[in-house]
């Protein structure tokens, strides 16, 4: 699986749309970003979101500020969805955290309480581990040899069942309940295989469904455990119904529906056609599923409407919007959706799926002069952050989705760089703002010019409306909040070392910084503890733990052979 990709069976990482009413916001005419040509960055096979020398930048030629589009102008570029490498990650079960270590060809099992580490052999080049609900078990896709391993752990031992899938699938999705796993090829980005070669010769238009229940019994042959089925051209998403009995494989122009317990009766999976050319440009669309897995929602930069696919009744529904949405997001409870209408400088908020039968329930909130193409939903309230990363714009807005109130921040509030991505802290009181930067080279003649052309992030206190900018020499690769949102750890690699910075979200201060030599692989937070872990690419296995509060660092090297705590 492309390590930059979010697994849709987990949670919606890429945040998009916010809908907000313009009450007290700055007045002014609506603006649209000028057209640009750069494509959004995709994660490379090594799992990095970007290399230092090709970090994503918002279309730097434009400079800050936006201008209204001219007639006949090329359509605006898509917003960039920046997904931290941490989502590549660790599977968290009841008692353990599992992290794939591609270098070792193993999965590392971490005990969060004791920070003990065990190294579990699996197949070649394991990708990300996925937890199985309700038990200490995880599945991992081994891209090196095209197999899947199921790990079942107990305090005494780890039992591993591995089965060949026949192809080097890239992504893995687990059904709710953990009974089935679907291995597939993600073709949502430009077609490349895991090793960077053209993937056209690889069997991309198929999936492998693994019966994990049967696999764990042991002794089964491959045919008893694995079913291979053809799906549509360019699969982009896999969703499940909430019972975990059906899988929906979304491809360029159709959705294949797999009855997971009855695949034998489906040699060819039934399809629901999208039947809309405007939604076939996979790099310009987005697909979400509601929590129940009944409705799939599609938006496209090329269409001023939304499509809902009712996967129970096999129906396609449409909602007309004032303009093409540049982002779509669902509220945490799934009852509401927000669509950012970048071209109209507004946001639409509406109940789902109700709006498809009652279009009058849609609410349009004007943004005035604020530019927005992307939204990030608050995890705790009906609020969103709005910004655009399709152009260099030093601006961020918050919108109260209930009241429709918009507050816009810019350099007058200490926001002195454009926004690339944003994420709320878990408690919703603060946020991390990842900044974009312009493609300008030294020598610089002023502080502002240098600031605009170098990486950085800001810590943002929403209530006080205060930003604290931390300037960097290289891009942030990954980050993770402490569970209470009070602390933030950021992973910042450079040429020959990497740094972990700890920030306090209450005071908006960087409180410590540690440098390491080994290449980092994954970073995450150990559940139920105040520790961050960072796995390294190391021949003997290396993992570093860092305490959120004290900054204390402990490194274990050679856990593959024996544990040597540093």
């Amino acid at each position, binding site marked *: 699986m492309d390590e930059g990709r979010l697994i849709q069976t987990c949670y919606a990482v890429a945040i998009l749309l916010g809908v907000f009413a313009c009450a007290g916001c700055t007045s002014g005419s609506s603006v649209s970003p000028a057209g640009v040509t750069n494509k959004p960055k995709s994660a490379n096979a090594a799992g990095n979101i970007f290399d230092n020398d090709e970090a994503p930048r918002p279309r730097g030629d434009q400079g800050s500020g936006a201008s209204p589009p001219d007639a006949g102008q090329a359509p605006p570029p898509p917003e960039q969805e920046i997904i931290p490498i941490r989502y590549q990650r660790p599977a968290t079960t009841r008692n353990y955290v599992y992290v794939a270590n591609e270098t070792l060809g193993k999965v590392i099992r971490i005990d969060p309480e004791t920070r003990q580490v065990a190294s579990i052999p699996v197949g070649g080049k394991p990708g990300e581990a996925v937890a199985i609900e309700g038990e200490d078990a995880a599945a991992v896709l081994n891209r090196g040899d095209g197999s899947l391993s199921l790990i079942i752990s107990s305090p005494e031992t780890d039992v591993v069942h591995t089965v060949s899938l026949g192809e080097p699938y890239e992504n893995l999705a687990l059904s709710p309940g953990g009974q089935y796993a679907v291995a597939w090829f993600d073709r949502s980005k430009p077609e490349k295989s895991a090793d960077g070669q053209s993937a056209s010769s690889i069997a991309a238009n198929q999936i492998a469904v693994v019966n994990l229940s049967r696999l764990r019994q042991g002794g089964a042959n491959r045919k008893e455990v694995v079913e291979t089925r053809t799906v549509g051209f360019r699969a982009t998403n896999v969703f499940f119904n909430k019972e975990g009995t059906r899988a929906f494989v979304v491809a360029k122009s159709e959705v294949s529906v797999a009855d997971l317990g009855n695949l034998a009766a489906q040699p060819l999976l039934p399809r629901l056609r999208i039947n809309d050319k405007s939604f076939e440009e996979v790099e310009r669309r987005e697909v979400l599923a509601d929590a129940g897995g009944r409705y799939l929602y599609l938006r496209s930069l090329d269409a001023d409407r939304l499509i809902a696919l009712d996967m129970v009744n096999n129906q396609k529904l449409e909602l007309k919007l004032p303009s093409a949405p540049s982002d779509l997001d669902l509220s945490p409870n799934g009852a509401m959706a927000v669509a950012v209408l970048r071209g109209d400088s507004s946001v639409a908020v509406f109940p789902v799926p109700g709006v498809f039968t009652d279009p009058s329930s849609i609410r349009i909130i004007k943004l005035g002069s604020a530019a927005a193409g992307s939204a990030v939903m608050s995890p705790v309230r009906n609020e969103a952050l709005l910004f655009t990363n399709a152009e260099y714009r030093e601006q961020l807005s918050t919108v109260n989705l209930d009241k429709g109130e918009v507050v816009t921040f810019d*350099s*007058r*509030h*200490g926001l*002195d760089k454009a926004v690339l991505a944003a994420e709320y802290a878990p408690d919703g009181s603060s946020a991390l703002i990842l900044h974009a930067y312009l493609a300008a080279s*030294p*020598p*610089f*003649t*002023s*502080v502002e010019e*240098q*600031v605009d052309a170098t990486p950085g992030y800001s*810590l943002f*206190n929403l209530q*006080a*409306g*205060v*930003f*604290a*900018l*931390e*300037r960097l020499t290289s891009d942030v690769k990954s980050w993770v909040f402490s569970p209470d949102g009070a602390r933030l750890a950021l992973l910042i690699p450079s040429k020959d070392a990497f740094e972990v910075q700890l920030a*306090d979200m*209450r*005071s*908006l*201060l*960087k*409180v410590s910084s540690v440098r390491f030599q080994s290449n980092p692989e994954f970073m995450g937070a150990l559940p139920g503890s105040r520790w961050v872990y960072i796995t390294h690419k190391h021949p003997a296995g290396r993992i570093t733990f860092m305490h959120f509060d004290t900054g204390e660092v402990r490194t274990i090297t050679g856990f593959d052979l024996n544990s040597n705590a540093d």
Partner: protein
Amino acid sequence: MRGQSGQVLLVATGALAIAISAGAALLISSCGDSASDITLFPDSAGEIVPNSAGGSDRSATGGSRDAGTPAEPPPPETENNYLLAAPVSSRNYVYVLNTSLGTIARIDPKTREVRSIRAGRQPIALATLEGQDTAVVLTQGDPALALVMSNPEADTVRSVRLAEPYDSLTVSPGRQYAIAWFNEGRGRPFDANRRTAPKVAIVDLTLLQAGETDASKVVVERSVGFRMTDILFDQNGSRAYLVSKAEIAVMTLDKLRDEPLLPRRRIDDVEFEDVERREFAITPDGSFILARSDNANRLLWVDWTSATRGSLTLPSAATDLDLSPDGRRALVVLRETNQVGLVDVPAGLRDESKLRLLSTGGSFAGQAVLNPARNQAALYTTVVYREELLLLDLDTAAIVKLDSSSGLDKAIASVGYAPGGESLVIIHRAAKPGESPAVSDLERRTDQAQGYSLVALDEGVVRLFETPVAPGAIAFDPSASWAGVVLYGGQQDQRINEVHLLDLRRLIKEASHPMPSQPEYLGALPGGEWLYVAQKHPLGRISFIPLGGGQPVTITGYEINAEAE
């Protein structure tokens, strides 16, 4: 001039800086009589006359402009800090940064004994605590803040680590706190390699003095806005205002640990976000902060008591802002309209009719310097080549012009009052090609030369001294009878390196003393008998120049042992 309260620091920038003895303070007192030798010259645009007290004359020469933004902001005046000095004298000693050695030199003015103190790697800023023999030192090599406590027997150094290599240091008026910060304000040349962060570290000096060196107990860090430019204090030092590009963070010093995030006040005015073209001042009680910008025809004010803000419309952008020491009057120089504005604080801030505008006639003034001892301001410009200095009586509004008729024969780079306010030192600037208005070759050469002038204010006499290189640091002795000026420059084989000793009563150069090494700091020892010149030397070198005549005494190698030369 910048109206920043708190102790101003002597910063090791590698350039010459000036240390004025502790007695040099800028004050305003009652006006003196106008000199009989001063002539008022009518200008082609009209006579220079005092404006009637209490009234404003908006139709004065230069006219008025609509409030708002000037079509093009005028070029900023150049503020040269020749005469801005950091008091580095304590009760009994003078402390000097030695950047060559990375140490602090402690000088006993009575005996001229020099002791070298190591206070950390790469000391970059130095302050003293008034009334104590204690110096505060900021180091960058291993980021730390050190307290040097001196007595005749020994110097005790206590230091505490800082998280960042801060490069500026300010001590609160109450001397209880030192604030380490990154100064990104006006006048600092852009350095692409410079590392900064929007945060400050506040060090509790009382705790440090008592022996506590645990950073978690002694140091509190707080986030501030992007590009911090000023620290302003209220009079008793209980509250600090940390001014950044777009906001002001308010710090209540004894409640720091209760406020993880400092409250902010937005400046909320784009024209005032250009840090290179703005200036802030604070009233002594901290109730009002005023700001001017080259980009805006208004004076911005913030009233912390009522938590309100507003702006006063001006006829043109203010190119300089000064506050009287009692904070009751603000002076704004309105260069483009040839005016000076006097604003009563606070009443005049909210009532434009109370703005008192004084015409400078045809004279071009962009900067003001306040007389420390009289109610007077010296006005001049550095933007165009003008051989004139205006002396404004702040009470009567009378303006006296000094120009070539008075012996002022070169344009001005900087002006400094001697402590008693009776004399001035003017640092001149050399005319660039084509700038000199002189007709004769002699005068043109004079215009193109470097130099300085001494001015006896009461007599209105100006004495010009041409110099082979641009004058550097200047220091006054506490009695204001003497001044020293450093001259350093020129090509390697024709290097000029000397200190002129100037008699301010007779306006003569008493002596010209060659210095053995490149001067770093110049100051006057308390007691009124000596000037000192700290120089760059691997072993440490300081020269002492006797006021009133005599040869300098140089001490070399005080780092190892003292050798008087």
